[in-house]
């Protein structure tokens, strides 16, 4: 299926007469958003939006998001390092995890990652809007503190992997069905705080507050260069096209549709999971289309349509951590009675990480997140505010409900809609 975008543009008669079209090998279009010209001739032109995210220039792809793919794969490997340590009963070395985070000392096994020149740490809480222009309440102090928070997860995993069995106030291993999980003294799973937290602090932040920011897309001479199709030296894309692709890459950059079953990682995977619920079953198509439409609009110099797609992506993508957070809090709540609550901790840790992600959303038109950092911190603090954190299961359920309602209300769905995938 192909979507066609029609652009109505207005050409003033006066300007039209001045233009001798035969003298111009190219058509001059005046895109005027002003409505103060009465004498106008309606003209329409269109461009196609491809059915897949495929864009070419001179028969060569103009799409490149290898740096984003690298970071997704790095986080994937970091996650596996935790599970491997738990499964094998080996120490999850905090020094190794720190090195993976910084990409030093050749800690990755994936092809090209060690030499990619990319790292996760320097892109954590590093968006232009929030952490350079300090919109949305951001600052370098916050950047430092969230990076430290992830480093703390490495320490917590290290402590949990020393041989103890997890119990209230004791870091250790919990046997969750057939899976062994590393759990910190307060019940949180360092791996999940890292994975879901980084989906927010790195991937979401880079998408919503960096690459889809007009401050980034239109920086320097980007707009004029894109309009004139001046390419980045040695590349087949304009700087603006590439910027858009980098946003795309942070969602879909580690997917593999050439194998069965298809592989989906991080946001791409969770978009699918949320979309599987009929209450939210347009999100996947909406986000996917907005990326393609926006990219086609950039090629066609149609910045109004581009900007409209930015708003679509920012709003729809923010729904994913919101719905998933509520889903996991409710799933966890249902398991609080099992194993003194430990059975719930995996889901609650995922929920905790997705709540962290909400701080990096960007509500269209505000250049601020749906929830402020203070609001997000209050939710996170509430979750672990009992004695020994999540282990305080007698009081935890009510807190989880309150947070669930708070998130659902903000995003305009009900807790029930998010809690059950049907």
């Amino acid at each position, binding site marked *: 299926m192909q979507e066609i975008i029609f652009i109505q543009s207005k050409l003033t008669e006066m300007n039209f007469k001045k233009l001798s079209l035969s003298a111009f090998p190219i058509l001059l*279009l*005046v895109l005027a958003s002003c409505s103060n010209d009465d004498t106008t001739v309606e003209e329409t032109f269109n461009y196609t939006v491809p059915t897949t995210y495929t864009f070419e220039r001179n028969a060569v792809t103009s799409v490149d998001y290898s740096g984003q793919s690298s970071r997704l794969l790095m986080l994937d490997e970091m996650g596996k390092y935790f599970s491997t340590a738990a499964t094998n009963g080996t120490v999850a070395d905090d020094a190794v995890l720190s090195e993976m985070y910084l990409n030093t000392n050749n800690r990755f096994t994936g092809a090209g990652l060690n030499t990619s020149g990319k790292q996760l740490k320097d892109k954590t809480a590093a968006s232009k809007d929030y952490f350079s222009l300090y919109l949305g309440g951001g600052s370098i102090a916050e950047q430092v503190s969230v990076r430290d928070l992830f480093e703390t997860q490495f320490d917590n995993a290290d402590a949990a992997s020393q041989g103890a069995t997890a119990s209230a106030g004791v870091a250790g291993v919990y046997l969750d069905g057939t899976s062994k999980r590393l759990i910190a003294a307060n019940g949180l799973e360092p791996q999940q705080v890292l994975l879901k937290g980084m989906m927010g602090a790195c991937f979401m932040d880079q998408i919503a507050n960096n690459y889809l920011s007009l401050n980034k897309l239109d920086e*320097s001479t980007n707009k004029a260069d894109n309009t004139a199709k001046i390419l980045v030296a040695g590349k087949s894309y304009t700087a603006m096209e590439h910027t858009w692709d980098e946003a795309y890459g942070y969602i879909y950059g580690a997917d593999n549709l050439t194998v069965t079953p298809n592989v989906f990682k991080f946001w791409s995977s969770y978009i699918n999971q949320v979309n599987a619920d009929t209450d939210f079953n347009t999100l996947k198509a909406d986000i996917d289309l907005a990326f393609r439409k926006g990219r086609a609009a950039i090629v066609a110099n149609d910045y109004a349509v581009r900007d409209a797609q930015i708003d679509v992506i920012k709003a729809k993508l923010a729904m994913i951590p919101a719905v998933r957070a509520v889903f996991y809090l409710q799933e966890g709540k249902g398991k609080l009675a099992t194993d003194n609550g430990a059975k719930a901790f995996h889901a609650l840790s995922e929920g905790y990480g997705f709540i962290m992600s909400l701080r990096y959303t960007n509500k269209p038109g505000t250049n601020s997140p749906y929830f402020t950092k203070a609001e997000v911190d209050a939710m996170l603090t509430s979750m672990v505010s009992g004695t020994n954190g999540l282990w305080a299961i007698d009081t935890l359920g009510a807190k989880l409900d309150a947070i669930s309602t708070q998130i659902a209300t903000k995003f305009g769905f009900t807790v029930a809609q998010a809690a059950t995938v049907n």
Partner: protein
Amino acid sequence: MKKILLILSLIVIVVACSSNEGENNSDGNNYDRTALLTNWADNIIVPSYINYQTKVQTLVTNTNTFVANPTEVNLQTVRTSWLEAYKAYQYISMYNLGKAEEINLNIASNTYPTNTIGIESNISSGTYDLALLSQLDKQGFPALDYLINGLSTNDASIVGFYATNANATNYKQYLTAVVSKLKTNIDTVVTDWNSGFRNSYIANNGTSVSSSVNKTTNLFVKNFEKDIRTGKIGIPAGVFSSGVKYPEKVEGYYKNDISKELLNVSIKATQDFFNGKHFNSTTTGEGLKSYLDFLNVIRNGQKLSDIINNQFVTIYTVTNTLNNSFSQQVNIDNSKMIIAYDALQQNVIYTKLDMMQALNITIDYVDGDGD
């Protein structure tokens, strides 16, 4: 595909509908830029250069005395005049235009950390040409810092390098050469300003990318962002290295108790320039502040010039909590450095974004944050 090719061949003229409406903030054509440039040249830039030139001359004189008679007392005199010249330099570092730009005065004067291995190599070989590009990181104030503060941990030993060391002649020669280069550089710049550049600078009073107002304002913002925020605070504090701190990359590392003083002087120089304050005087004239006020630039109900000046007050409050030695501050409590960085960055945002937009000046340098 044909459609795409067709589209690629279109030139779309986007008519901004707001251009004929009330965008009074972006049209500075009525502002007297000649008066602005005259104030900058005659009351700020040239007097700052002359002051710096005088301080460098004192440094030359005291260095000659020390070289002729290497004693601890004479070493102290060199140090004192070095620090005075270093502070005076903070007042000129933003004017990287004309002859200063041509001779790389900034890079030659203040590249740190200095290349100590290269310096020692130059000294032992005894042959070097400080005018060469490859020598830029082996001279200037950081090189002098090493030569008068960093050769040893005690003063007697430092004096020994110039008195009893087997290579004492070469040490003396190098110290003299570095100081002389500072003098040659500033003499060249002052001569140029006095022999025509001042007039052409003021005459270039348009609004193009290469106009004096645009260039100077860009340099003002760039100096504040790159040389002050990034160089003096950000890099040592690990802001650009994923948290890896560099206490050895502070300004004035070998003296080690002056990085705060140099920072504060540089901020003062920045604020003074913003306000059009005459050098070494309480008088103010035309400047970025008066330009913004002329255009009546308001942000959130407040004059942007007031917002910027208020942020300078915040900056001083924060920097005054810092240790005199940023090396120590980084090691003891880096969070204070981060807070200082955030305070500085906030004024980078106000000037680089809000001010430049209001003055309708395009940023002429880019951030290398590619991926």
